[in-house]
């Protein structure tokens, strides 16, 4: 008999069917991966199971008995625990306080912190999840915080544990540790639902894979019966090219010319230390590097959001070193920013308004300071169509779109403007395979049209599959340049982490006087 059984769960949001008669079974000691693209309805389904949302139809059974779950409290009472994608931890409180919250041991309303602490230690030892019970959440790493979330569910007596996109925020090392933890939980008799859109994780950890698409279960399989390509096909509903093929680059005129560029970061420390390179038309140049090595500042300078402290930049021969964001757009630079929520979109605006940003001064969309709604609407509808943004209409608020569709919207605006240079900073971060494939194809289309593309990415696979040339950035400098066929992940990783005898003498000299000044 399954521990948890869902029978024909239906959940409707205004205008969208998030779950349509979804059925699912989970056996004791089993890891089921719930796989699907962003917006396929995985999280909605699990929020129904956890009592955060109420279903419009269907029923939930625990150990074969119908279970009424109308609130998280009832879910907890039935032995269901959930680790949310965005952690439900109270940052200033301690690990122990967070774990016992809602089920505090004690008498007459007074919490017995000694017992609470002992129980936390006991559970953490039993499942091999080491933790400092007195640490404050805000002082813990993300991986540790996730561990607290799992402990919290165990403390509440969970037999079924739902993990919602648990690896999204983890480093590769932490992901391996998490997989170990999940296996030991299952060995102890728990059952786990693992929500994800990452194929390699599913293959690594799941006993059984349930694939969802557009709110329905579209297939079920086991890792040994399939491979990543097969899974991707089930998930997206068509063949997916995981690695794109591209024709040989036909390098045209030089579009972007950067020489000896210097720039500071927010704290006033030099982040870009003399970078020179060029990008020509019909070429994708990728900047590879570990996050925080000056890529963000470099991109900001090129798109006019940061003032360089030295050096020059030219776009098709025109000096753009001190161009503002506006004149940079007018000169033909488009920018897909790395943080689509903070910089790419105004989440409270509707899609048409978002699409017009940056072009809001240009005819035919506006003349003499007045917008022309008809022209804007026509343009918005066409872009939404061309770039396959899935939405009922252009009047929808941007925050209501799934992450993949939001990114398509940004791509639609920036590429739709028909730029000379496309600067794409981590254009596929957080996207699922279908959306990644789409964005990659758009970037290569630009290249085929003879446009210049500067790609900044932390994903080596992306860098290797898209770029004609790869610049490795480390500590604010370009330490190595490769052509696409010279490079592989290992070599890139080696140079990205400071291998290859990078000279840092300059830094040592700069740091010297400051240190001695501090001592004196």
């Amino acid at each position, binding site marked *: 008999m399954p521990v948890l059984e869902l029978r024909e769960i239906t959940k409707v*949001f205004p205008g969208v069917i998030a779950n349509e008669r979804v059925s699912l079974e989970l056996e004791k000691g089993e890891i089921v991966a719930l796989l699907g693209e962003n917006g396929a309805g995985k999280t909605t389904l699990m*929020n129904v199971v*956890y009592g*955060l*949302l*109420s279903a419009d139809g269907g029923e939930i059974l625990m150990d074969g008995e119908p279970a009424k779950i109308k*609130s*998280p*409290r*009832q879910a*907890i*009472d039935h032995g269901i625990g*959930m680790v*949310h994608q965005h*952690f*439900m*931890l*109270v*940052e*200033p*409180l301690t690990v122990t*306080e*967070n774990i*016992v*919250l*809602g*089920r*505090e041991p*004690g008498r007459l*309303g*007074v*919490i017995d*912190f000694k017992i609470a602490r002992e129980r936390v230690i006991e559970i953490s030892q039993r499942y091999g999840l080491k933790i400092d019970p007195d640490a404050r959440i805000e002082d813990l790493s993300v991986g540790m915080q996730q561990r607290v979330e799992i402990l*919290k569910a165990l403390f*509440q007596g969970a037999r079924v544990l739902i993990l919602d996109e648990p690896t999204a925020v983890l480093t590769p090392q932490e992901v391996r540790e998490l997989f170990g933890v999940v296996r030991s939980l299952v060995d102890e008799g728990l059952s786990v639902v693992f929500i994800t859109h990452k194929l390699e994780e599913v293959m690594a950890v799941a006993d059984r894979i349930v694939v969802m698409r557009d709110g329905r279960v579209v297939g079920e399989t086991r890792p040994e019966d399939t491979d990543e390509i097969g899974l991707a096909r089930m998930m997206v509903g068509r063949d997916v090219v995981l690695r794109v093929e591209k024709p040989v680059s036909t390098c045209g005129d030089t579009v972007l010319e950067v020489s000896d560029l210097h720039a500071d970061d927010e704290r006033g420390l030099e982040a870009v230390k003399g970078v020179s390179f060029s990008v020509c038309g019909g070429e994708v140049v990728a900047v590879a590097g570990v996050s925080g090595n000056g890529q963000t500042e470099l991109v900001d300078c090129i798109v006019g959001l940061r003032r360089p402290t030295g050096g020059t930049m030219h776009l098709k021969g025109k000096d753009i070193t001190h161009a503002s964001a506006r004149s940079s757009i007018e000169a033909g630079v488009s920018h897909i920013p790395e943080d689509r929520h903070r910089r790419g979109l105004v989440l409270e605006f509707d899609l048409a308004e978002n699409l017009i940003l940056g072009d809001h001064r240009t005819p035919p969309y506006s003349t003499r300071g007045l917008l022309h709604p008809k022209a804007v609407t026509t343009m918005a509808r066409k872009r939404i169509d061309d770039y396959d943004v899935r939405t009922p209409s252009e009047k929808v608020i941007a925050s209501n779109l799934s992450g993949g569709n939001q990114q398509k919207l940004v791509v639609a605006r920036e590429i739709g403007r028909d730029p000379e240079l496309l600067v794409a900073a981590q254009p596929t971060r957080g996207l699922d395979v279908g959306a990644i494939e789409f964005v990659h194809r758009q970037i290569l289309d630009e290249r085929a049209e003879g446009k210049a593309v500067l790609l900044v990415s932390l994903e080596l696979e992306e860098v290797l599959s898209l770029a004609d040339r790869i610049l490795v950035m480390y500590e604010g400098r370009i330490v190595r340049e490769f052509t696409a066929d010279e490079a592989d992940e290992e070599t890139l990783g080696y140079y990205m982490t400071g291998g290859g005898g990078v000279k840092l003498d300059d830094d040592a000299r700069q740091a010297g006087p400051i240190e001695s000044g501090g001592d004196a």
Partner: protein
Amino acid sequence: MLGDIITPDLFASAFRMATPLALAAIGGTICERSGVVNIALEGIMLTGAFFGTAAVLATGSPWFGVLMAMVAGVVISAIHAFASVNLKADQVVSGTAINLLALGVTGFLMERWYGHPGTTDPIKTLGPILRLTAEGGGFLGEVWRWVNGIFLTHTPIVYITVLIAIFAQWAIYNTRWGLRLRAMGEHPRAVDTVGVNVYRGRWVAVLMSGALAGLAGANLTIEQVGSFTENMTNGRGFIALAANIFGRWTALGSYGASLLFGLADGLQIKLQILRDVIRIPPQFFLMLPYVLTVVVLAGVIGRAVAPAAVGEPYEKKG
């Protein structure tokens, strides 16, 4: 001259003046810890002061007046709770509305019930609990005179307030209620997902702040002044809010900060009396508590970290 200013009396008045501030500030602490901003403290205090006085005038019993002041505080704060928790209104707007409402309602009822604006008839007040003689000579006699003067000459609510501050501090950090209170002001959804009712928790917190601010009003009228005057709270609710921030959203911190404001108030009165000697216009001394408030809020104490979710209505999902 310094000897005329630094007297047991000055410190005693600090405790006295601190009492209404501290009560309201602790109310503010509890309310804001739950995630609801309460700038209505001023209006709630005023409401408590009025209805407390009215109850004493009607029955002649000061303790009944104290009770009614708290009940009135709870009733009017229920408006704030309903608006900010259920209707998810902007909490600053709701608080401001209550302040205006309190001013209007007390002024209106004053005319209706007593036939004139301004001040009510004097009421029977609560006097000091202990009335010890401060006699005796020598060093010990002097010490006794100070201890008695500062600590032992107060009315009941002054002592009750000290107990409330200590108890609230303990409860916020040691009880189930306190842990949930602190958590819901930081991350209400986290509290909801472990099955604790955030709406109910916030309601309770707002009503408690109403009872405490009402009690503050009772202290003003039934212990200190002995009658009700229109708008007699005179900004104390806002100073209490500052004391709560100064005290970093803790009950004892609120009490300590209120003592400082109380001392400034006491000093101000002293200096006014001595204005002929020191030749500074009394208005400057009147400014003292308010200037102190501004200085405190301008961040002299360093950055105070408010509860993360304060002021944000909590919305359950679909």
